């Protein structure tokens, strides 16, 4: 039997310099191609869960294996294999990087220290830009793009590294309806290629009509975990957040 790509067993996590756990005794396993939506009230630990999966937050207890690697001892290696679109970024108009450079940076971890990007790396960046439909913006300064275009650039940045898992934190927050649909299409394609999508979101319109796995978090714990239709996500979440 194939092992799950994400395997969390009873993990507790805390930020550096803080002993109080944010996530408590959490169990979660995610298989290839799954489309997971994480919901829950504010301060439920949703972002912390994503950052525990890629090793950016310290796991104090429990076992965490991602892409077959122990997250506690191989955090940087895990992050090379896991795409992570962070929440609430803003690039000012004076940011001196083009879209192509930013997308390319997604690949830098895999290239390694003291090595220069090859033509194959550049081609991967161009492909990623093509996938999210921003190839025409390659030479533009990232800070001069709209919020939605910046969001797409960050998704391309993560696709460029050839992720085995895709984590997204509120990926639709800056996007209009059309852009959301485009992006959902891209994520669906990734899921169909076997890359699990794990997404924290409060925007549920336009979720793909495949089996969605809804994970509800309350106070650092998973309180509900079910497979459901895209149209039922919001309704279930309303009930479970109140109960939780």
């Amino acid at each position: 039997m194939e092992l799950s790509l994400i395997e969390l067993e009873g993990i507790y996590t805390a930020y550096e310099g803080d002993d109080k756990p944010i996530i408590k005794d959490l169990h979660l396993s995610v298989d290839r191609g799954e489309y997971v939506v994480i919901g829950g009230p504010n301060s439920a630990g949703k972002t912390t869960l994503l950052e525990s999966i890629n090793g950016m937050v310290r796991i104090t207890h429990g076992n965490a294996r991602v892409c077959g690697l122990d997250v506690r001892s191989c955090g940087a290696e895990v992050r090379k294999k896991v795409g992570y679109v962070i929440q609430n970024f803003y690039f000012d108009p004076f940011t001196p990087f083009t879209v192509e450079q930013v997308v390319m940076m997604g690949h830098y971890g895999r290239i390694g220290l003291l090595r220069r990007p090859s033509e194959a790396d550049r081609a991967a960046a161009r492909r990623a830009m093509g996938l999210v439909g921003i190839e025409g913006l390659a030479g533009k300064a990232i800070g001069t793009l709209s919020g939605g275009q910046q969001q797409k650039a960050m998704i391309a940045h993560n696709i460029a590294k050839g992720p085995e898992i895709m984590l997204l934190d509120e990926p639709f927050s800056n996007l209009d309806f059309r852009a959301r649909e485009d992006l959902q299409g891209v994520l669906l394609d990734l899921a169909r290629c076997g890359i699990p999508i794990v997404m924290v979101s409060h925007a549920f319109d336009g979720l793909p009509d495949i089996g969605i796995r809804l994970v509800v978090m309350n106070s650092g714990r998973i309180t509900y975990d079910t497979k459901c239709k895209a149209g039922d996500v919001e309704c279930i979440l309303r009930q479970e957040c109140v109960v939780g």
Partner: protein
Amino acid sequence: MLEPLIQNNVVCHAVEAMVFASIACSILGVIISRMNLSSIGITMSHAAFAGAAIGMYQGVSSQIAAILFSVGVAAIIGPVSDKAKMAADATLGVLFAMSMAVAIFLISYMEYMGKGLSASSLLFGDVVSLYREEIYALAAVSAVTVLFVMAFYKEISAIMFNMKIAEASGMQVRVVYYILLFIIALSVALSLNILGGLLIFVWLVTPAAIAGQFCFNVKSMFIVAPLVALSTSAFGVWAGFEYTLPIAPLVALILTGTFGISVLFSFKRRISAKMH
């Protein structure tokens, strides 16, 4: 090094010192200003100042003491902000205040004891009374700075873009960040006698800010900022000797004036304003 071009030894040393200090500080300035860590410059310069004061008090080389103290501060900036769960700027503020207190305490105490310490060269710079070894050390640290940026350009540019996003990509951001702090400490400590503890901040911030008004990509910023610092420093040295003016403060004023003019004529600012 420049003796074949400049006959007068004092002027030659002043030009060489200014050239190397400008290269190192302005290149590092591009990185720290983009990372919103300008307070690193001010903290390091005051740490070097405190170290120099300790050296004078102990009767040992003020430059070596400045290097040791600022490298020590560099070594604790990163871990303290990680462990204390504080923003790097808050950590820098605490270290800055501590360094300043140490320096003022020792200088006041030595004056009180009649040791006759003059701190003006440490505060405002002195390009006239330099030893050849000091210039060689500064040349070495400038070369190290250039090599560091060339070798780790990929990592540095990603950190300058966004440290969290760089870390999420699986890059060794902390290693590069700590090396950066170490090189800043070395550069600042070695430039202290030349640019002065209070003025060095101008070299760390202003050339990068001027380059930022015109450059759309980071590569050109790494070229324009040192060129601006070099040309204004060379002009300042010439004007200082020609009209008998204090050189480091004069260059600092020229750089600040140049920044004002660059803001007025910044086409990048105009293009950005049009787009928003």
